[in-house]
């Protein structure tokens, strides 16, 4: 049980129960490592709230105590306005004087379709939040974050990727990847076939690019991030050759693909191929790939 002092008036402890055998996700908050329990949608979120008044001589008046479970879409882009994705409020106490007390709470089979997500400008966080409302003073708040991970109930339909790069009479290359859908620990396998390569290629690399799109009230912000580049070919290929691509996703910090969360946020991933010629000129081609979650944690998160 953790206790937090709020302005020295009282401590609020929020403890989640039913956490045995639950995976823990380590995150950084304010440069500090924090261990979050991982829940999934339809899990029952239950726990204990304990409030202790620290200064017993002074009575603390309040106009009610609330317990709120919410999933919030937070973005630094849209003037800091957060959107509640899901929320549920329980009243713990009506107006009165604060005294030491414990409450048990439970949100049975709570629906949390969106996963927790830490993005560049936008993120999704889940909390259990206790608020002591006061009339003339600032409310006393305490929250407990947890992490939501959902296994995709149905795997999106995969289609083979075939991308062609061509400059007439100069270059004709195609990339074939049998799958467009990968789980987070998957291996991207594919081939690059050369039909014509008059351009003197120097090397080739693939990159996984993440694109966060946030639609604020007035404009849409897009954040691109190259998660990694991976050299797949060194030198210039010869007509008729076929270069294998094998790329392990395991080491990569990726989330599943999210589409239109709250109609304003999506995270998409793209597989990009760069061909770099002798003059450092780049030719590229990209195609979206879809990630889904097969296990609650990625292997590297254990």
């Amino acid at each position, binding site marked *: 049980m953790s206790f937090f002092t709020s302005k020295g008036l009282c401590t609020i402890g929020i403890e989640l129960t039913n956490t045995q055998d639950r995976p823990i996700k380590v995150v950084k908050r304010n440069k500090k490592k924090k261990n979050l329990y991982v829940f999934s949608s339809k899990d029952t979120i239950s726990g204990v709230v304990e409030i202790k008044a620290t200064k017993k001589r002074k009575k603390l008046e309040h106009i009610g105590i609330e317990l709120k479970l919410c999933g919030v879409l937070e973005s630094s882009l849209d003037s800091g306005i957060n959107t509640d994705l899901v929320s549920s409020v329980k009243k713990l106490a009506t107006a009165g004087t604060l005294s030491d007390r414990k409450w048990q709470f439970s949100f049975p089979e709570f629906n949390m379709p969106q996963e927790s997500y830490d993005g560049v400008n936008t993120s999704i966080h889940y909390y259990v939040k206790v608020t002591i409302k006061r009339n003339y003073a600032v409310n006393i708040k305490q929250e407990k974050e947890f992490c939501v991970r959902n296994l995709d109930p149905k795997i999106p339909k995969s289609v083979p990727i075939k991308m062609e790069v061509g400059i007439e009479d100069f270059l004709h290359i195609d990339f074939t990847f049998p799958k467009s859908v990968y789980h987070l620990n998957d291996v991207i396998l594919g081939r690059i076939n050369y039909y014509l390569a008059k351009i003197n290629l120097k*090397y080739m690399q693939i990159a996984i690019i993440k694109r966060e799109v946030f639609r604020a009230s007035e404009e849409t912000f897009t954040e691109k991030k190259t998660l990694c580049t991976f050299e797949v070919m060194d*030198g210039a290929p010869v007509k008729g050759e076929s270069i294998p691509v094998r790329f392990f996703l395991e080491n990569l910090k990726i989330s599943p693909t999210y589409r239109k969360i709250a109609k304003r946020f999506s995270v998409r991933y793209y597989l990009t191929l760069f061909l770099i010629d002798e003059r450092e000129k780049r030719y590229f081609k990209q195609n979206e790939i879809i990630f889904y979650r097969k296990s609650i944690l990625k292997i590297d998160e254990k």
Partner: protein
Amino acid sequence: MSRKDKTPKISQKNQEQKKTPTTQVGEQTQLLDSLKAAARRSGFYLQRSVQEGKLSDSIKQAGEMLNGLRSSSLSPKNYYDLYLFVSDELRYFGLLLRESIKKEPIASIIYRDVQFTSRIIPRLYLLITAGAVVIENNPKKTREILLDLLEMCKGVPHPTRGLFLRHYLSQMTKDLLPDISESEKGSKNGNEKEIEKEIEKEPKNQKSNENENKNEKKNENKNVKIKKEESKTENNKNLQGNENEDKKNNVLPWMISINFTIQNLIEMNKLWIRIQHQKLPGNISKLERVSSRIKLTEERKDLCSLVGTNLVRLSQLDSVTLEVYKERVLPILLEQIEQCGDKIAQSYLTEAIILVFPDEYHIHTLPDLFSILPNLHQEVNIKNIIILLIERLINFANNNPKSIENTFLITQIFSKGISSITRKRTSLPRIHLLSILNGLMKLSLCLHPQRIDFINHMLSSCVKSIAIQKKLTKDEINEILSILSTPLDFYNDLNILVQLENYSMLIDTLPNENRRIISLKFLENGLNTLTIVSSPKKVSKLLEITKVLFLDSKDSISENEEDENLKSLFFREQYTVCRFIHLLRSENIAKSFKILQIIADTFSSGGTRRIKITIPPLVFSALQLANGIRQLEKEKKKILNNNNKENKDHDNLEDIGLSAKKIFEFIHKIMTSLTKLLPLKSLKLFLQCALASDKCNFEPIAYEFMTKAILVYNDHLKDPKTQYQMINYISSTLQTLRAFHPDNYSLLCNQCGGYSAKLNIAPHQVRAIVTCSYLFLSIIKQPLNIAYKEIKEKIEIQDEKNKNKKIVKVEKVKKIIEYKRPSNEPVLLYFIDVKRLLGCISRAIRVAGSLMEPSLLFELLIEILNTCLYFFELDSGAVNSSFINTLLDLILQKKSENESNWKQLLTKPIYNFYYLTFKHIKLCKKNKETKRLFKPIKIEKILKDFLK
């Protein structure tokens, strides 16, 4: 890979390209040093991580270390240097992997984790290292890993880097390739043996039905094969734990090794070729472009061994048996060679295959090898390849005689192969074709020396190839000379060589000087081996082959008299010819004569220069033959006399119409051309002929020769000194002749005397006359002489009848004088004419007396004295004691006339001569046998003179 750390390198590279080539060497070493230093640094960290057992850290460090190998700026040589350094350091990483894999079965994790490395070059080096460890730990995975590695290596199509990467692959896996192990072999053999035993047993049990037996045997053999394969697979299963997949595909573990190696070879070859076609930076001048292309080619050639290692590896696999080689290895290799279309690769690989695999394999795959040769790049030096192959086969055949079965077939394959090459490869230089044919000839000689027709055929091919009107180059000429020498050196028998119909045709293609060289070599070969050529036909062929030595030809170099080299060469040739014709003879006289005639015919058109040198030995050769015939004739006569029955040989001789006379006629004929050209020599030869015919008892012929000699003397000799010499020759020859009728003899003697007296120089005259004097008291000295024997027999008969007669007539023709000295054995005199003898001596003394020079006079007188003493000692009555005494007085008188300056006049040799002569007389006076004869000789005065 972030772009940031990529850019500096590129800019650096661009700078390098702009710099002039001169600074490149220094730059290269600098670059190599810095890359090595970086690798050493990472290597240090790597070792530390290894020691601490941190796998992921060491992967990172190893990847860091391998980054140096991504450099594009190093020359292949320096890159190799760096490669060696880095791959050595990588061993630590391998050690760690090996340790980790022992602790827990994380093979797949290791194999996966190294693949997180984002840069491809380090990633693949690590992957190979890990793969090798995985295989080592679990051989079941061999196939899977090897195939995967092969596949992944495709990611580096960069020529140099790819080549080294695959080389590393080859190095790391070399000890891991499954092969037929020793134990397997053993078991295989064991199986075979058992089966063989079974087969052996069978016929014994079923002797009654042989046909059935045979059928069953066949079946049994099939079974054996099947069983063998079964046992193989079983063995493999036991030893290797063969994977199911492999079984399905019917892939045996050792096949994996073969396929893997071949595949890697093919890929490496492609990369190697690609080095050649690398694009050069666009901003350099044409000149630089050319020079850097050349440099590139050179550098590329240095890398050939990287590709070749794979071939070596293949040859080291026990599983590559002849059958496997023929069915599965060679066809793929050949296809690859043919397809790659690169001249350097084609020639290197073909040669490497020939060198690396056992010769036995080549023997069985010759047609396959030959099938690709015509299709190779036009610039590939086919010649080198074929010659290499030939050399190997010759070597093999020499080391393992009898091991090659169908030798005939091999040559045939070569022959066919070469003809298809010449058909398809129009650009094949003539010199190469000639070299190939030369090699083929050597092979043919090695494999089946008895097939002269093959050699002849090849010579004809050579002739055909030269038929194109194009002047022969120096190299081509040398090659032709070598071709011509090949059978010569091999057979060392001219008799075989003359059977080569095309030999002379090929010689004819050469320029004059080279024809001479080879012809000379030809003859010298005969001389060195002392090969007798005894068939007239062969002789005329031989002369045809070497005709350049006998005849002037259109392209003869006009002999410059001042050119000493040419002169000496000419003489060397002609003297060799002289020595050589003595080898051309037969046991059969008729053939020998025929041979002589052929030679004479050839010589006769050779021009005076040659005749001068070559006729004399021919004459001698003929004389020898004449002598031989004479001997035979005599023997036959004897046989006929003793036994009147038919004699075959004699008949034969008569049939042919040959007799020594004919030969002398022949000699006479060839000599006539010589007299004008070479009077001195022909004179001597005539004398020689006279001697020979005299021995054969042909008086008229001998007389003719003598007359000829004297005629030559008379007509052609003008120089007094020569005249003097020659008249001496003539008279001394005449003195030994024994077949003459005394009248003829005396006639000749007169001529001699006459010419002697005509000599211009007085001392010459004196001496010549003195020499002539011997003619008139001719003694038969040689007891073994045939003529002598005949005569002696007659004498003995005559002696019994007329014991007191001193002069005996023999067969009416010859006069023989037996003179019995009172104290000695009888002396046989051939001719005696005291009057003329004394006439000669007197004339000599008279001429000498007219000389003004006392010392010369004195010398001559002593010489005359010596001659007289000789006659005196013979006790022939020709010279008596008073004559000697008179002569002695004369000498003393002449001496005393010049007493005053005697010592100045008399040179020591003359004085010694004088003294010794005196001493001789003194001794004879004391000697028991000659005491009586010498008694009247008075020497007191001389003694006194000496005592003074």
